[in-house]
């Protein structure tokens, strides 16, 4: 019986491995594991990393990528207060209307507005990016297998020159981790691409790390409260079940 249960467990493990394995397709390398503060059972986001990552997003990524599901008011989770958020929003313009003339117009963004997209629609985005579409980044971390490590590896995985015998198509860049090894996005990050407001040294690794953590937050803003609630729930259920089990044993002991 026990050996058979073990066999089931072994097969189960195989099945999960089959499902969960990252299919690195077309020669792309599998992303190595990187260190993250928020991925553990007790994980939390580092506000400094989030704010730096936000700065990287604003200054580098936002020129091509939208962030449709994040409103300026959400930035309170990153550590900004209402006044700062209002100021950040005021740097952007959003479309509103129609006005009394029936015309759409642009106005300064408010906290309740969402991040405006850099392009009006996918077609405009493709036209400005050589036919390639820069995907929305709100949930990109969840939309890719092993997304967090993958993104970091991708951002740091470019090569100036492709390896010998590799046919790089026109307008593409070589990347170790992108499926097919060629990616339409030119290397977005490089040392000192951004001057951090908090003075942290903007190495390539730092920039990639911070923006990845920021995007992990945009994908899962509920992460911290989810894990905290989970801990309370698990402990409660464990104690309660143990209690019920003790009662069960006593109730059943009464038989004979």
């Amino acid at each position, binding site marked *: 019986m026990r050996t058979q249960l073990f066999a089931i467990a072994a097969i189960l493990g195989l099945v999960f491995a089959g499902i969960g394995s990252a299919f690195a397709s077309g020669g792309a390398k599998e992303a190595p594991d990187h260190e993250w503060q928020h991925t553990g059972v007790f994980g939390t986001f580092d506000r400094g990393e989030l704010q730096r990552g936000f700065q990287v997003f604003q200054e580098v990524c936002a020129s091509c990528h939208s962030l449709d599901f994040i*409103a300026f*008011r959400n930035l309170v989770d990153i550590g900004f207060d209402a006044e700062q958020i209002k100021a950040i929003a005021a740097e952007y313009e959003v479309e509103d209307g129609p006005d009394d003339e029936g015309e759409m117009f642009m106005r300064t963004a*408010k*906290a*309740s507005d969402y991040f405006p997209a850099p392009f009006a629609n996918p077609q405009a985005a493709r036209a400005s990016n050589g036919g390639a579409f820069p995907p929305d980044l709100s949930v990109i971390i969840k939309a890719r297998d092993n997304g967090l490590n993958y993104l970091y590896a991708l951002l740091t995985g470019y090569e100036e020159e492709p390896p010998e015998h590799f046919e790089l198509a026109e307008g593409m860049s070589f990347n170790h981790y992108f499926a097919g090894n060629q990616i339409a996005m030119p290397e977005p990050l490089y040392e000192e691409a951004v001057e951090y407001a908090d003075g942290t040294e903007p190495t390539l690794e730092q920039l990639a790390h911070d923006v990845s953590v920021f995007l992990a937050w945009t994908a899962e803003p509920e992460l911290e409260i989810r894990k905290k609630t989970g801990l309370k*729930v698990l402990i*409660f259920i464990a*104690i*309660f079940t143990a*209690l*019920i089990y*003790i*009662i069960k044993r*006593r109730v059943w002991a009464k038989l004979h």
Partner: protein
Amino acid sequence: MADTAPESDQARPQGEETRRDFLILAAGAMGTMAAIGVAWPLIETMNPSADVLALSSTEVDISGIELGQTITVKWRGKPVFIRRRTQEEIDAARAVSLDDLSDAESDEARVQKDEWLILVGVCTHLGCIPLGNKIGDPRGDFGGWFCPCHGSHYDTSGRIRVGPAPNNLPVPEYEFLDDTLVRIG
């Protein structure tokens, strides 16, 4: 041996009962906690969501409103009337005796600045939107608003004077951020 055996026989049943009672009590208490812990999120999840709450206040630019003009803005899904009252309208409102009002409120209590009357434009009878904002609209017998559904008349302070409506047009929470900007809600 013989001395201690009967004693332990006596002690065990009572100890048993207290232990059993404690277990039942503890289980019952935790069960109640669990029930509340499950019910609470189910109830809270029906609360207004974060995006709705974010729109719970709106800022209005009142710089373009002429004397005697009323604009309507949307706030929390309802119309809000912002009227820039003329002196005659203010005086008419002040002249009314509180005894004549079914919902007695002084005009001073309903405005922060005399010139600016800000009301939720929903009739307190059954919820229609009273007329009186556009040029040519009937304003009722008291110069304020007239509700076409069942004939309620409101005065220049938005107070009910004649008709089935029980209360004055409500005054929402608002704050003048400066001379041209008012935040409602």
